[in-house]
């Protein structure tokens, strides 16, 4: 009887509460498109990628407009210059390996304007080992596999800020809103870290551990704050992400030392 009385009231209350709906954007005027540069440079011999695009109006159905006529190059501290080939869909790629503890300058020339930013490949000790354990998945109560990572470090290393990337069965998981960054300023190791994704037997997992500069860590923190939190446009202090290019352009230039390891989930306590 009591349940009969309470349930309708509760459901009525809850259903009538906490709703969301799409709101039409008010007219915000016409703004000149801003240049956006996304660049990641690592010490792995692999395709280094720079993406150049333009911002679009808020009501525009396209997310961004690619810039295919940019001139992209990397210049080392000694003045060695490495030019990227022409881009496609705004993406410029070049097989290249950055040296450890080296400072690189990225220059992107668009319509005669050179947008530049610098970064250093901060050395990293890398991943010592990956292993997995079978545990209860708290989300659905089923059994799932979790990957753990040991990444010991020794002083004096000046790596303070890290980023993790994860590929599961050749699909990059840590993309879009998934930004895994952490700080390791004072400890000797980051052993026994459980990665927050559940796996099934047979999954192939590649973990990448990258060093970050302080400014890149700050950038990603603000980006994740922008993306993850319920960003109260009327309450949280809203402004653009930090500008890392001169002259000012949106985007970032991440220079990292990266270590990657692969694990295949096949048995307990590997």
């Amino acid at each position, binding site marked *: 009887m*009591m349940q009969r009385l*309470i*349930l309708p009231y*509760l459901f009525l*209350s809850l259903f*009538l509460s*906490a*709703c*969301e*709906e*799409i*709101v*039409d*954007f*008010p007219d*915000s*005027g016409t*703004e000149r498109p*801003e240049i*956006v540069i996304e660049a990641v440079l690592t010490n792995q011999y692999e395709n280094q990628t720079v993406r150049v*695009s*333009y*911002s*679009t109006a*808020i009501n*525009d159905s396209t*997310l*961004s407009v690619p810039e295919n006529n940019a001139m992209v190059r990397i210049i080392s501290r000694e003045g060695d210059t490495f030019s990227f080939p022409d881009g496609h869909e705004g993406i410029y790629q070049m097989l290249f390996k950055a040296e450890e503890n080296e400072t690189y300058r990225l220059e992107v020339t668009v319509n005669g304007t050179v947008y530049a930013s610098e970064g250093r490949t901060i050395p990293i000790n890398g991943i010592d080992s990956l292993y997995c354990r079978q*545990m*209860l998945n708290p989300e659905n109560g089923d059994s799932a596999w*979790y990957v753990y990572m040991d990444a010991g470090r020794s002083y004096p290393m000046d790596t303070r800020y890290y980023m993790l990337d994860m590929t599961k069965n050749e699909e990059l998981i840590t*993309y*879009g*809103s998934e930004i*895994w*960054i952490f*700080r*390791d*300023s*004072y400890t000797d190791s*980051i052993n026994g870290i*459980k990665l*927050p994704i559940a796996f099934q037997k047979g999954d192939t997992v590649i973990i990448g551990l990258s060093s970050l500069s302080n400014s890149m860590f*700050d950038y990603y923190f603000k*980006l994740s*704050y922008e993306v993850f*939190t*319920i*960003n*109260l*446009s*009327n*309450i949280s*202090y*809203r*402004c*653009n*992400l930090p500008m890392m290019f001169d002259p000012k352009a*949106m*985007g970032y230039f991440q220079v990292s030392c990266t270590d990657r390891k692969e694990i295949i989930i096949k048995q307990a306590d590997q």
Partner: protein
Amino acid sequence: MGQEQKLPDSISLRVHDFTLRQVIQELETRYHINLYYSPSKLPLDRKITLVFDEAPLTTVLSEVCRQAGFEYRIKDDQVIFYSRNGDADKNVTTSGFVIDSITGERLIGAAVYFPELSMGTTTNEYGYYSISIPPGIYDINCSYIGYSTIHKIIVATSKQQISFALITEAYEIKPVLLEGSILNRAINLTPGTDVLPIKLMESYPALLGEKDVVQFLKMMPGVQTTTEGLNGLYVRGCLPQHTSFLIDDAPMFNMFHFSGWFSTLNPDAIKEVRLHKSMLPAKIGGSIASVAEISLRDGNNQHFNLTGGAGTITSRITVEGPIIRDRSSFIISFRRSYLDQLIRVSNPQKLIDMGKIYFYDLNAKINFTVNARNRLYISSYTGRDIFDDQGGAGWGNSLFSGRWNHLFSDKVFGNLTITGSGYDHYFDGQGDDDDYYKINIAIRNYNIKYDLTVYPAHNRKMNMGLNSRYILFPPVEFTGNSITMNPEAADRRTYKALLTTLYYQGDFKLTSDMNASLGMRLIWADKIYPDNVKTRIDPEPLISLEYTISDELSVKTGYSRNHQYYHGVSVFDLIIPFDKYVFWGNNLKPQVADHIIAGIYYSPVHRNLEFSMEPYFSMLKNQDRIQINEEIYFTRDKNINPVSGCLNVAGVDFSLRKTTGRITGFISYTLMKTHKKEEGVNHNAYFQTYYDRRHDLVVNMNYQLSRRIGFSSNWVYMSGNPYSLPVGKYELRGRSIPLYNSNSLYNRRMPDYHRLDVSVKIGFGKQNPCRHSLTLMVYNAYARKNAVFYHYSDITNGNIDNNPNNKNGDRLFSMMGYYFFNVFPAFSYDFKFGK
């Protein structure tokens, strides 16, 4: 005294060697003359002989007075006999206490007023008043919000104690009387002070049917909130960290349960709420904007009572009674929310997993009258919120307050206050044993104060004292193994500060129509640890002037300066309070505010209205914003690099209150502009703050249909919150990021907020000992969708989509509006056993 009757023009009286007592009896019984006298002041046994036939009454009275050696005066068809003793040129002191006639509780802020002298005063926090008046015979009125006014005639020839026991019909639903507020407004010298009509709180249509002091506070002029469901009050354009709550003089750091929907105090335990906006009395400090002084009830020292109620999500109970009748009493109040229990009972299939989500609070207070000059009060409180469902948060306050009143003389009232209060909150992410972290933040505050109020003959009142406040911010405690938290990095030091304040405030009568109040606080601010911070000495002047144009109309103006020695850091604005405070230090200066207020107060008594208008302007300096980053809880204070800023607030509050009759209510309107400037933000130009509600209007109306049935309604209107509308978007890591115009911060407003709440209250039970009532209400009756906030996001097929790998539809950059309540019915059942 006889019953009131018109005096005869002439009388016949033949008595020989009658005592004065017998003569008085003759006058009362034979001619029904209303005689007023003090037996102790008259020679009642003195022999008198009178021979009068149809002589004028005044002739007879003159002869009586001549033979007995005193005087008489006729006033309002009453004959007053009074002694000639006393110095006619010297003021005499009238003092005493004002109490509730049923509970014996002393009433705060009750007005004691002499209409003929246009003089008055109010009782202090302990129900005591003292006033010096010229010798004579006067009407004296004593009134208080919700109580019937008492009229007396006094003969002031020497100092005397006159106490008042005010009468209220404690339970029957009836139009709320607000007469007291008229006098309070006229007498109180400090502009910006508002006494909440607590009695109205019993009938207003409260959210979820839960009457609550903070929700009611939000309806007062000048008090705003950013939006529903958020912690904090924005009083006269200042931030929540600029408002302090004092519970029986002990500070409470977080006044909110359930993410801001409720206050931490059981409404049945509250005696009075006094909100000081902008200008703070000298004896109160520590905040730069406002202080809400909340006094808890002392408990009934005459009878045992059991009071309580059940609302939509909470139940509450209060027990009170005498320990020693007339001398000592206690009160204990407990409240707990039970949404979690309801769901547990009604939802065995775990359809809705609410985990352990509840709050509770417990108040206890005792008082003891040692003798006529000494009284002790001890209050304590503990309360907690738990949001714990495999990781969550919790926060809670505890406080203690001990006070000792001592009456040195009828002109000197002393009070020693010792308080301690603590606040803790934690935040954890608890998945399983291998992935766990917990952050715990604490604040401690200890206070000792001696306060003296002196009522000298010519000055109306002087208040002075010494206050020492010891504040501790212990280090953030961290446990766990999360990759994003690092316990070794945390600052392990406890930050301590000692704030010692010497204060004085004097109220002076400059002319018959003009009063002034001058005050000064001198603060020694000493940051004890870590060192290397020089001790500061800061003066805080206070001045206010009042000009009485008539008994019904007065104008006031004032200026004050306030300091606040800590800055608040707030990370999560929504749902969970998660705040940290940082003392002034190397990179942070104390916050400073200068307030200028003016006001017009019009109270036409016979029309039962009270109108006030208070324009104000505040300049807040050192409004440094501590930037949020992932290390904020572990960073040493000296490493914090704030963004310096300042804030200007200009506004005007209007208040109109209908005080008696079948229809009662109030209209509160605030017109306000808040502009902030921060270094390097918005091209160093002023921008409106996110909480700038330009117009804020509350219309409350209560209609009493019968003794048992009453209707109540609120209509609330606020300008929409400013927000920053992006001018474009760009793509990063495969998702859309809003692009803002860097020199156009908060450039748009959300749609205006408005809603209508209605309620009906039905009373049952005729008389003691058991009475009860049922309140039915509807919140947001016309189902207005008031957006609480906007969120920019990519959506696919109408759903938020942060996965750039998703190819199942067109991704669109969109603005999502969120709102909490559409239409919400609720109920509340209240009961009371006892008187």
